[in-house]
């Protein structure tokens, strides 16, 4: 438990009156509370607070789940936290995302972005985590990412449910003229055991709103949970099998126009000249507008249907002014190669050993390798889109976003408006993976909407525009060196990683007023903070700008460094002449690494690790701790005629506490297939200042015929709660590369692996 966190997190539970005399329960925040985002539903005279549960007189129970639902099931799990304490089944509640409000800030997301490993409980680490939470509050980060939503909500949403139950019981006792001990709760109803009479929560709501909130939280023990810890059906499941109109791209408003964008190849390239004659000649096209924003420059095409807008954008003749020096991928690799020869920008973790230890490894005991990972696009199934409307003094935006607060902030800055006048409605997301933490799609829609005002406009990007104007997973080179002593011990490990900094790319386009300070630990995530008992460890970053917008991509730095680190561990094991599993376990002896040991041992059992395989088949193993979840995987491949089939994957994940095993396993499965998709051929490359890939024919992902059988088990040994959305991704690629080595003796050190070996 965080020392500083204890009081910074201190918020006071409170009550309010919901619409039509109902009850609303949420938190009053410490220090300067943010304005209540649901003011319209609150009676006057109440202190601002952010509600998580609202009960109307008609017994409609609404739970606010202020996180983006992009497939991870977070609306279901967040609602389950409240429903568990409130004693209502999930089927009986309505789950809403709620408005974009800084009151719903996500402290957990930034908590793990401090430069200390997850398992480092030292005072310094705790202090840093605590202060990052304060930063999260003041930036008003209502964001979804970093696999953090459930961790963030775990206490506060259960407390909201408990407080609601507490005041409802008091109100019921008064109603029946009895004591609380004589009452039972079930399904949104309270029954007096003596008389057998019942009253609904809704009927009690206005009376309950007058009861003082509890001063002490008596949350249920995990052993008493009825909903948590058990697999639930997604609250939005039916919408998703009936073609429900739930995504940003499905927004339909009266008198709405349609649009698209044709943006400069990247930020930093400006709009010089253009000819819109051919575009305006296309039937249905209405106008072409200039877009000049903090995230990029280009043109917007307005039409009376999306297809006409697409054709219009294609017909534009545009001349760009590109002052950037790095025009192709070869130049970018050279920059990273050069960065590796320069003094490190910063280092994290490590043992503080003398530098000499790392430079004086005897040749016979040395193992060294260089690994590479390319830029990657997110390629969400739903292309970027947003709908916007200027109605006089305010701007409304409807979009699938992981960060509605950032949209408010950036759109209001662009138009020099008050952020309170920017209203963001968050729809369901057709994939996020970090791409929808960006604001560009919403900002461009807002700019185009200025031209269509008062009519709203839905701006949809083509797949080509989406692929070529992403904020990419950064490319990186990892130069790893180690010393393996004759007894097979990894004594020294030196990790040098060259990559651009995501934070340095993100901050100027989101918070132009704030200069990023300190090391960007995403550059070394998955390398510096891995469980590893090695005498001398050094982990250094060589940060170099490649003039390409980069961003958060499912598992972020772990997606790069997990591959480097775990490929290297396999190479070191080979050098030591040891089995890769035994070698790992031998370097995971500290008490605090027990979750890693248990995960590895279990996944080995599940996969039949060590049992013989027919010729041409091989197994690879990897473990990565990311976002607080310890994840071990074994991949089994068949290599026939130099062509790899990924046959089967076994995974064991330990997030400490599992709130919904079905949903959690789904996320691990998804993370595995997302990770393996990289290996099969994903690569964003640059030529003539432009991305070379454009659509799914050149930037594809795993298909059904390539999908392995996957078996997943969950453990709960970890002392702290971890996330679900990302940890499945990092171990998948090194486990695959290690399996290919086991099957063929061929060591592939760069992604995508398909550049060196064929996959079915």
């Amino acid at each position, binding site marked *: 438990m965080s020392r500083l966190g204890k009081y910074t997190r201190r918020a006071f539970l409170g009550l309010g009156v919901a619409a039509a005399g109902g009850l609303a329960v949420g938190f009053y925040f410490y220090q300067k509370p943010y304005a209540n985002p649901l003011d319209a539903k609150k009676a006057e005279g109440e202190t601002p607070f952010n509600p998580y549960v609202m009960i109307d007189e008609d017994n409609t129970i609404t739970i606010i789940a202020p996180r983006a639902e992009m497939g991870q099931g977070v609306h279901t799990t967040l609602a389950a936290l409240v429903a568990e304490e409130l004693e209502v089944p999930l089927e009986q509640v309505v789950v809403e995302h709620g408005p974009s409000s800084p009151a719903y800030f996500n402290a957990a997301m930034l908590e793990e972005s401090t430069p200390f490993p997850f398992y480092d409980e030292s005072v310094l680490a705790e202090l840093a985590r605590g202060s990052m939470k304060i930063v999260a509050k003041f930036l008003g980060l209502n964001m979804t990412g970093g696999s953090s939503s459930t961790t963030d909500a775990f206490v506060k949403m259960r407390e909201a449910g408990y407080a609601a139950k507490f005041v409802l019981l008091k109100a019921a006792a008064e109603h029946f003229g009895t004591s609380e001990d004589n009452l039972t709760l079930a399904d949104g109803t309270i029954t007096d055991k003596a008389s057998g009479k019942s009253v609904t929560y809704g009927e009690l709501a206005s009376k309950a709103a007058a009861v003082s909130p509890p001063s002490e939280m008596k949350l249920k023990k995990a052993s008493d949970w009825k909903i948590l810890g058990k697999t639930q059906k997604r609250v939005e499941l039916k919408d998703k099998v009936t073609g429900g109109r739930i995504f940003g791209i499905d927004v339909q408003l009266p008198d709405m126009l349609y649009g698209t964008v044709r943006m400069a190849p990247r930020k930093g390239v400006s709009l010089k000249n253009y000819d819109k004659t051919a575009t305006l000649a296309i039937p249905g096209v209405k106008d072409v507008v200039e877009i000049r924003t903090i995230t990029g420059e280009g043109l917007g095409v307005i039409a009376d249907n999306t297809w006409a807008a697409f054709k219009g954008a294609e017909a534009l003749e545009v001349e760009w002014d590109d002052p950037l020096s790095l025009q192709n991928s070869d130049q970018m690799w050279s920059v990273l190669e050069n960065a590796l020869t320069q003094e490190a920008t910063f280092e994290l973790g490590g043992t503080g050993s003398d530098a000499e230890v790392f430079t004086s490894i005897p040749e016979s005991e040395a193992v060294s390798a260089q690994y590479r990972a390319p830029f990657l696009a997110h390629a969400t199934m739903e292309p970027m889109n947003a709908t916007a409307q200027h109605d006089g003094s305010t701007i409304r935006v409807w979009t699938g976003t992981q960060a509605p607060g950032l949209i408010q902030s950036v759109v209001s800055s662009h138009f020099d408006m008050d952020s309170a006048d920017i209203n963001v409605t968050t729809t369901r997301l057709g994939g996020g993976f970090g791409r929808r933490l960006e604001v560009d799609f919403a900002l461009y829609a807002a700019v185009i909407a200025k031209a269509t005002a008062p009519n709203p406009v839905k701006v949809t990007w083509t797949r080509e525009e989406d692929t070529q104007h992403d904020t990419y997973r950064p490319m990186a080179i990892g130069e790893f060196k180690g010393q393996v002593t004759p007894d097979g011990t990894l004594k020294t490990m030196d990790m040098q990683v060259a990559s651009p900094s995501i934070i340095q790319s993100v901050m100027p386009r989101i918070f132009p007023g704030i200069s990023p300070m300190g090391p960007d630990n995403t550059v070394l995530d998955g390398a510096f903070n891995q469980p590893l008992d090695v005498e001398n460890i050094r982990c250094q970053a060589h940060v170099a700008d490649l003039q390409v917008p980069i961003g958060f991509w499912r598992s972020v730095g772990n997606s790069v460094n997990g591959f480097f680190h775990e490929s290297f561990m396999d190479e070191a094991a080979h050098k030591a002449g040891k089995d890769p599993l035994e070698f790992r376990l031998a370097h995971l002896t500290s008490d605090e690494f027990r979750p890693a040991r248990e995960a590895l041992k279990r996944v080995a059992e599940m996969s039949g690790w060590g049992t013989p395989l027919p010729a041409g088949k091989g197994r690879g193993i990897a473990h990565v701790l990311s976002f607080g979840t310890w994840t071990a995987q074994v991949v089994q491949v068949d290599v026939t005629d130099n062509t790899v089939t990924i046959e089967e994957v076994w995974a064991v994940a330990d997030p400490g506490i599992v709130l919904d095993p079905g949903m959690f396993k789904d996320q691990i499965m*998804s993370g595995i297939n997302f990770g393996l998709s990289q290996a099969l051929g994903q690569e964003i490359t640059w030529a003539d200042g432009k991305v070379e890939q454009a659509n*799914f024919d050149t930037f594809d992902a795993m298909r059904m*015929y390539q999908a392995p059988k996957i078996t997943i088990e969950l453990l709960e040994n970890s002392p702290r709660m971890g996330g679900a959305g990302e940890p499945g991704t990092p171990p998948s690629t090194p486990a695959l590369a290690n399996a290919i080595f086991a099957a063929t003796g061929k060591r592939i050190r760069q992604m995508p692996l398909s550049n060196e070996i064929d996959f079915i």
Partner: protein
Amino acid sequence: MYPKIPLTVNGQKQEIEADPEMPLLWALRDIMDIKGPKFGCGIAACGACTVLIDGEAVRSCSQPVGEVEGEITTIEGISQGDELHAVQQAWMKHSVPQCGYCQSGQIMAAVALLEENPDPTDEDISDAMTNLCRCGTYPKIKAAIKDAAQTLGA
């Protein structure tokens, strides 16, 4: 002015005014306000826009609306009132969707597959189901199709 194009969508005859070259997907979404078929790529590479034309799976993003011959069925048209299609029920039972964006297309492709092959093997499913899912729900899609095949065959 655009010509009038007669269409039958989910059993309803209608006429729309549109450029005959407009892909059926955009005619459905932007003109007829049928939002089940989704836009993913525009080049028939991902299948998010899959609809049925006379029972056959078609990627509507690459099908000019003026050349449609036959009855169009979208995901909005496969359930009988409140009773979901067996494939949709199997999707719910197996909790297939994650983000859900590709699932309309996946379900339509599965409906077409089971019409043609009521008892598909794993390989048949892999061959027929070429739609992209970025959430990687393939193992569950496969399980749900087998389940639906049993229900429909029963």
